[in-house]
C-alpha cells in the first residue's frame, strides 16, 4: 500500500497545527506502509512564497515532493474577497475566486495528484479550506481521505465545500465537535469517517528541574504553549491573568512558550521564554502546574493533549466547543467563559493538589486511551483496509461544479450566516 499525504506546507521546522499533524501522521504511517508527502515550496502561511526548493527530498525518513506555488498571496485582495464571501450574499464564482486568492495556488501539485493517481492507493489531504485540498479531492475523489482540521470559522459556511465533504471516501475528524459541525454543513446524515486526532511523542522522562535551572523560574506556574497571538486568545489571557495576579499575590506565575506576535505585557508574574525546542518544551510542561489554552478556535489542540499525556491538568477557554468537549470527555480539564470562572478554576487547580492530580491522572488515561500512537496508527490503517475492502465502486462521486451562469448567480448566502445556523456547543460524552 502506498499513501500520499498532501499538505500545504511541510518541513521539520514548520510547526503550524495542521502541518505538524500531517508530519506526525506521515512519519508514523511510514512505519507500516510506504508514504510520500506531496506539498508546496512555501514556508510562510501568510504569503505562500516559494522559499523551499522544488523536487524530492527526505525528511524524517519520508519522501517529500515539493511543487512550486504559481503566485504568492495578495493579502489585500484576499481580505477584500473574504469580506465579500463571508458577510454578503455572493456567487459560487466569488467563492472560487476567494479560494484562488487564499492559495497556496499550486497547479503543479494538483496536476501531479491527478496524473499520478494510480501510483498511490490513498491520498490523505489535510486542511479542507486550501486550494490543494479542494482541487486535489476533485481530481482523485475515489482515493481521497480528508483530514479537514476544521475550526468554527466562517470558511466552513462557504458553499463550495459541502460537495467535497460528501465526495471523499472518508473523513478523519479531530473531534466530535468537528464531526457534528461538518455533518451539519454537508447536509449529510452520516459521513463516512472516524474521530482520530493525532498523537504526540512525549518523552518518558522529562526533566522539570533542568528547565527550572535553565530558566531560573521558581515556584508554581501556569504555562501557555503556542503562538502568542490575539487570535489564540492571548490578549484575554493576559488581561485575566493580570487581574488574577493582583488578587492572588504570591501565587502562580504565567510562563509563555512560543513566538510572540502580540506584545507580552511587562509584568513580574508573566515570563516569556520565546520558542523552545521540543525537549525544552516538554521539560517546561513537566515543571508546570497547569496548562492554559485560551484559544477560541481549535480543531484539536495538540498542546492540550500533550499536557494530558504528561499528566498535567488543563484550563481551557470554554467558548471553544472543541476544548470544552475535550475537557468534559476526558474529565481532565476545567474551562472558563468569564474572568470569574477563570480565576476560580485556576485557583481551584493551583490550590487543590488532589484536584490537580486527579485531573492529571484522568488526562493521562484519556491520552493513552485515545491519542497514543498505536491507537492513532491503527485507526488510519483500519480505515484504509475497510475502504480497500469496499472497493472503488463504493466511492461516491464528487458533484460537478454548476454551469457558467449558475456559478455566477448571486444567490449564495453569506458564510457567516451559514455558520450562525450551525449548532454550537460541546458534544457531551
Amino acid at each position, binding site marked *: 500500500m502506498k499513501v500520499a499525504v498532501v499538505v500545504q506546507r511541510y518541513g521539520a521546522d514548520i510547526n503550524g497545527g495542521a502541518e505538524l499533524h500531517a508530519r506526525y501522521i506521515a512519519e508514523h504511517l511510514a512505519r507500516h506502509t510506504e508514504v510520500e508527502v506531496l506539498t508546496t515550496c512555501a514556508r510562510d502561511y501568510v504569503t505562500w512564497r516559494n522559499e523551499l526548493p522544488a523536487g524530492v527530498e527526505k525528511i524524517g525518513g519520508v519522501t517529500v515532493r515539493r511543487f512550486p506555488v504559481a503566485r504568492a498571496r495578495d493579502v489585500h485582495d484576499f481580505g477584500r474577497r473574504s469580506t465579500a464571501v463571508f458577510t454578503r450574499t455572493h456567487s459560487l464564482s466569488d467563492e472560487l475566486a476567494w479560494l484562488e486568492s487564499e492559495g497556496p495556488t499550486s497547479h503543479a501539485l494538483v496536476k501531479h495528484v491527478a496524473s499520478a493517481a494510480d501510483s498511490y492507493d490513498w491520498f490523505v489531504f489535510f486542511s479542507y479550506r486550501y486550494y490543494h485540498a479542494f482541487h486535489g479531492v476533485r481530481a482523485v475523489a475515489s482515493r481521497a481521505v480528508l483530514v479537514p482540521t476544521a475550526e468554527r470559522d466562517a470558511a466552513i459556511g462557504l458553499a463550495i465545500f459541502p460537495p467535497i465533504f460528501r465526495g471523499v471516501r472518508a473523513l478523519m475528524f479531530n473531534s466530535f465537535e468537528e464531526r457534528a459541525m461538518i455533518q451539519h454543513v454537508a447536509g449529510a446524515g452520516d459521513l463516512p469517517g472516524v474521530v482520530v486526532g493525532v498523537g504526540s511523542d512525549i518523552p518518558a522522562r522529562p526533566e522539570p528541574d533542568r528547565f527550572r535551572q535553565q530558566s531560573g523560574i521558581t515556584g508554581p506556574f501556569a504555562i501557555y504553549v503556542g503562538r502568542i497571538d490575539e487570535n489564540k486568545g492571548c490578549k484575554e489571557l493576559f488581561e485575566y491573568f493580570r487581574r488574577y495576579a493582583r488578587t492572588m499575590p504570591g501565587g502562580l506565575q504565567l510562563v509563555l512558550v512560543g513566538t510572540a506576535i502580540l506584545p507580552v505585557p511587562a509584568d513580574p508574574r508573566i515570563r516569556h521564554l520565546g520558542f523552545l525546542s521540543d525537549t525544552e518544551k516538554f521539560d517546561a510542561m513537566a515543571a508546570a502546574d497547569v496548562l492554559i489554552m485560551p484559544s477560541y478556535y481549535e480543531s484539536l489542540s495538540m498542546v492540550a493533549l500533550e499536557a494530558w499525556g504528561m499528566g498535567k491538568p488543563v484550563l481551557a477557554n470554554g467558548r471553544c466547543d472543541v476544548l470544552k468537549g475535550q475537557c*468534559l470527555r476526558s474529565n481532565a480539564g476545567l474551562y472558563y467563559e468569564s474572568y*470569574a470562572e477563570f480565576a*476560580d478554576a485556576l485557583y481551584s487547580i493551583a490550590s*487543590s493538589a488532589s484536584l490537580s*492530580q*486527579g485531573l492529571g491522572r484522568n488526562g493521562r488515561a484519556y491520552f493513552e486511551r485515545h491519542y497514543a500512537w498505536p491507537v492513532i496508527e491503527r485507526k488510519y490503517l483500519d480505515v484504509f483496509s475497510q475502504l480497500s475492502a469496499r472497493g472503488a465502486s463504493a466511492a461516491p462521486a464528487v458533484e460537478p461544479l454548476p454551469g457558467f451562469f449558475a456559478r455566477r448567480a448571486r444567490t449564495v448566502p453569506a458564510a457567516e450566516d451559514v455558520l450562525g445556523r450551525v449548532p454550537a456547543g460541546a458534544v457531551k460524552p
Partner: protein
Amino acid sequence: MAEFNVRADEVNVEQIMHQIRARIREKRGVDYTEEQIQELAKIKLEKFLDPRGLRSDLLEQFQRAAAKDLPPTYEFDDQTLIRSGNPLVAFIRRLLQPVLKLFFSPNPLVQALHYQTQINRYLLERAARDVLVYEVMHNLVVEMTRTGIEVKNMTMRVESIAGRLDFNERRARALEAVVQYKPEGREEHGAPRGGRGFAAEGQGGRGFAAEGASRGDQAGRASGAEGQGGAPSPRGDQGPSAVDPVTGGESLRSRRRRRRRGRRSGPGFTGEGRETRDEGRGTDEGRRTGDEGRRTGNEGPVENVLEHRSRGDDQEQRPAEANGQVEAASERASQPDTPTEAPASEPDQS
C-alpha cells in the same frame, strides 16, 4: 474560594464547573460581564423602568416626545411679505407697500410673526434637548443598575470577608490556646505538681517558699508519679495521703502545728517566720527565707491579717508571682542533696 478534595476516579469536570459557577453566583449575586452591561446600555429605557411602578406618566411623556417628528420651522422678517422670485413682482409690491399700509398696519403682524419664529426655534432646540435628557436619563438608569449590581457584589464580598475574619479570629484564639499549654509542659518536666500548690501557699509570707519547695520535693517523692503526670487534683495537687478525709482536706497534723504556732508566737507573723526558718534550715534558701520571715515578722500584725485573708485567694490573683515561686521551688526540689525534714514534707492545707 473553596477547595476540592477528590480522587481521580471521582473527578467530574461538569460537576466541578457547576460548583464553581454556583460559588460565583453565590459570591457575587447576578454577575454581569462588560458585554452584558454594554448590551443593557443599548436597550431602551422601558426595559429598565416598569411603567406600572411610575407614579406619573413620565415614561409615556418621554416616549411621546421622543416619538414625535419635530415640525418644520420658518424664517420671517420684514421683507418676507413682499419677497418674490420674480424681481418685477417684488418691485411692484415694494412700490405699492405704502398703499397697503393705508388699509392696515402690517408692522405689528411682521413683528409678531418674527417673534414667533424665534419662539419656534427655541422650542425646537428644547425638543432636541429633551432627546438628550432622555438619553441622559437612560444612561443614569443603566448606571444605577450597574451600581446596584456592584453594591450587591460589594455586600456579598463584605459578608464573605467578615466570615473569613471571624474564622481567622477563632483560629487565632484556638492557636493561642494551644500556645498556652507550653509553660505547663515545662513545669511537668521541671517540677512535681505538688510544688505549684506550695508556692501558691507561700505567697502570704515569703518564708513559705522554702517550705513549699521542700514540701514539694517531699510530696513529689511521696506521691511518686503523681507529680509527673497524674491527674491534677483540684487544689494544689497535693498527694492523697496529705489530705484528711474527715476534715475534707485539712490534715490533723497541720492543724496541730497551727495551734502550736499560735501558742508560741501569738497572732503575729514572726513566729511563723521563725518556724519557717526552722523548717527550712540546712539549706541556704531556707536561711534566706527565714531571714525574710523575720523581716516580714517585724512588719507587724497588718501583714498577718493580710496573710490570713488572702492565702487562698491570692493563688488566683497573683499567678505570675506564684509561677516564679514555682520555678524557684522546682529548682530547689531538683537538688538531690537538699536535706529536708519529714514534717515539712507534709503539705500544709491551711
